[in-house]
């Protein structure tokens, strides 16, 4: 079932929760809504579900306009942030709820309900827990019950509000993987909310990045990371180092540091780069003279994270280097080196601008 959102907006009292929003979702897509707290993700999701009424705009599910259709008739499955399981019902009864709530004529027989629920529990790998109560389950298990419950009525559209927000890292990883498999298997269209970049990137076919009630970018994870549409997206998607200085003649100068930035307009400019775009060397090169001091060393996994300080920097930079490079340079605390940026990103009203440097 495809979803077409046109010009949906919403205001709560004085708060503009959503600017008019357009969004087309293809049948079977898995879309992540990513954005900082208060950016309107939940609001949009609830409007799609019919749990909230938009102030204006329309929503189509396939060819059918559902803007005025009551939640009950939208054929959606909704997974709430904290699951909203019925605490006083067993896992089985939770999952069976939607089936039992059907009008008598459509309601399956008790034995059919039983079969269907057990099949769903099988699918979420919880058959052994049918008789438990939600409070007796771990967070991840509760999450899966919520999913099974939402899927019981075979919805066309599955909506999930921060489905893994309350889980710890390990379980989250596992459930993510599992959700993706489920999605591929059953083929429903899904829309999920998250404020965790990694989660959005890992799980979604396309990511909708939101801030302040606006859509900042809609793109595949790969495009998003490589070609952020604007500064907000760039900053939101990962750690960022800042370099501010005056550009003249294709070169940015900042205190005793300078770097060649071909093609950047002259004037005061701020350029950004990610930690893995910072390389280190014992000597400056013509294109970049950026002297720094190593302030801290943290070996994490495959890489070593370094904190770099310099007079010309307001905030220290972070760099991640491989163990090999770390050892080659014989880096120690207090070591003075030169930073060689492999890429610099500039954003202004006109759009994004990337400067590639011949390093690395």
């Amino acid at each position, binding site marked *: 079932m495809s979803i077409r959102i046109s010009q949906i907006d919403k205001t709560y009292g004085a708060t503009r929760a959503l600017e008019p929003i357009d969004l087309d979702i293809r049948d079977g897509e898995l879309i992540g809504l990513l954005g900082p707290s208060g950016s309107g993700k939940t609001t949009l999701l609830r409007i799609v579900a*019919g*749990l*909230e009424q938009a102030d204006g705009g329309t929503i189509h599910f396939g060819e059918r306009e559902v803007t005025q259709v009551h939640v009950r008739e939208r054929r959606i499955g909704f997974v709430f942030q904290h699951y909203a399981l019925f605490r006083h019902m067993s896992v089985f009864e939770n999952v069976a709820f939607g089936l039992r709530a059907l009008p008598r004529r459509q309601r399956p027989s008790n034995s059919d309900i039983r079969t269907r629920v057990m099949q769903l529990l099988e699918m979420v790998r919880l058959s052994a827990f049918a008789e438990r109560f939600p409070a007796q389950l771990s967070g991840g298990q509760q999450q899966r019950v919520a999913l099974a419950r939402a899927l019981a009525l075979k919805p066309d559209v599955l909506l999930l509000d921060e489905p893994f927000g309350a889980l710890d890292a390990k379980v989250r990883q596992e459930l993510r993987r599992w959700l993706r498999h489920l999605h591929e298997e059953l083929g429903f269209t899904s829309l999920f909310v998250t404020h965790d970049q990694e989660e959005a990137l890992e799980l979604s076919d396309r990511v909708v990045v939101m801030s302040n009630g606006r859509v900042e970018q809609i793109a595949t994870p790969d495009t998003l990371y490589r070609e952020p549409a604007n500064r907000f997206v760039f900053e939101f998607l990962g750690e960022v180092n800042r370099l501010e200085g005056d550009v003249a003649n294709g070169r940015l100068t900042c205190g005793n540091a300078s770097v060649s930035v071909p093609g950047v307009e002259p004037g005061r400019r701020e350029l950004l780069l990610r930690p893995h775009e910072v390389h280190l060397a014992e000597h400056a090169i013509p294109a970049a003279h950026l002297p720094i001091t190593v302030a801290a060393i943290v070996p994490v996994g495959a890489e070593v994270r370094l904190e770099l300080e310099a007079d010309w920097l307001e905030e220290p930079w972070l760099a991640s280097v491989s163990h090999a490079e770390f050892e080659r340079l014989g880096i120690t605390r207090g070591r003075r080196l030169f930073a060689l940026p492999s890429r610099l990103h500039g954003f202004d009203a006109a759009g994004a601008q990337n400067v590639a440097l011949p390093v690395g």
Partner: protein
Amino acid sequence: MIAATLRRRASRRVLPGFGLSLGVTLTFVSLILLLPLTSLVGQLSQLSLSQYWFLISDPRILASYRVTLLAAAVAALFNAAFGLLMAWVLVRYEFPGKRLVDALMDLPFALPTAVAGVTLATLYSSQGWVGRWLETLGLPIAYTWVGIALAMAFTSIPFVVRTVQPILEDLPSEVDEAAVTLGARDGHAFRRVILPHLWPALVTGTGLAFVRSLGEFGAVIFIAGGKPFETEITSLMIFVKLQEYDYAGATAVASIVLATSLALLLVINLWQGRFTRRLHGGGA
């Protein structure tokens, strides 16, 4: 117009039952709460301002305000101390019979006020089990304002205990510990750290106890004695005026009691709201 707006909104509501609950609630509130109160207003509106003033400022009535306020204040203060002590003991300590004591705290709400009144009058009269002893100590209780305060205190015991208790229960042990790691002795920590946390609940509970005491009737009349200017409470004056067919007077005095109670409730709510906002964020 408003109804239409409401209806339009209602049709868009996600959860069912808005119209029905609104209907039932408004009907009930109008019939049970508002309609009778309008009759009070109706009665009052027949009085001129000067008549009204004359009725509510009669010296005997004024004296009854004084007695009522004084006794209620004493009762409320007693309960502030007693309630705080009981809440503290019930939350912080374990001792045999704790559950029983805890359950007993609600007795005054469960016991009809008339029963409480009759019993207290019997216990504290000069012939009673307790009154007899107090009498020999020169402390007559029944038929003095102390007796009134006693009855008021009895009926409002649960207010303070039950408002302070949950707050104290929720007070994390880290608060104690933080104070102690910073070198505070128990007394200092209690005064500067714990008490301020309990303060809103304590004031609310005490305020509610006070309001309740102002209106208390059943428990008080048996022990009050009803001496003009000395032991007449305002509720009794209303009752007396009713018995004299003095509806205007009864209503006028009732309006004062009602206004005072409502104002107090309002103040308690507002104050509590402000305090809570400060503790949980929002404007200073």
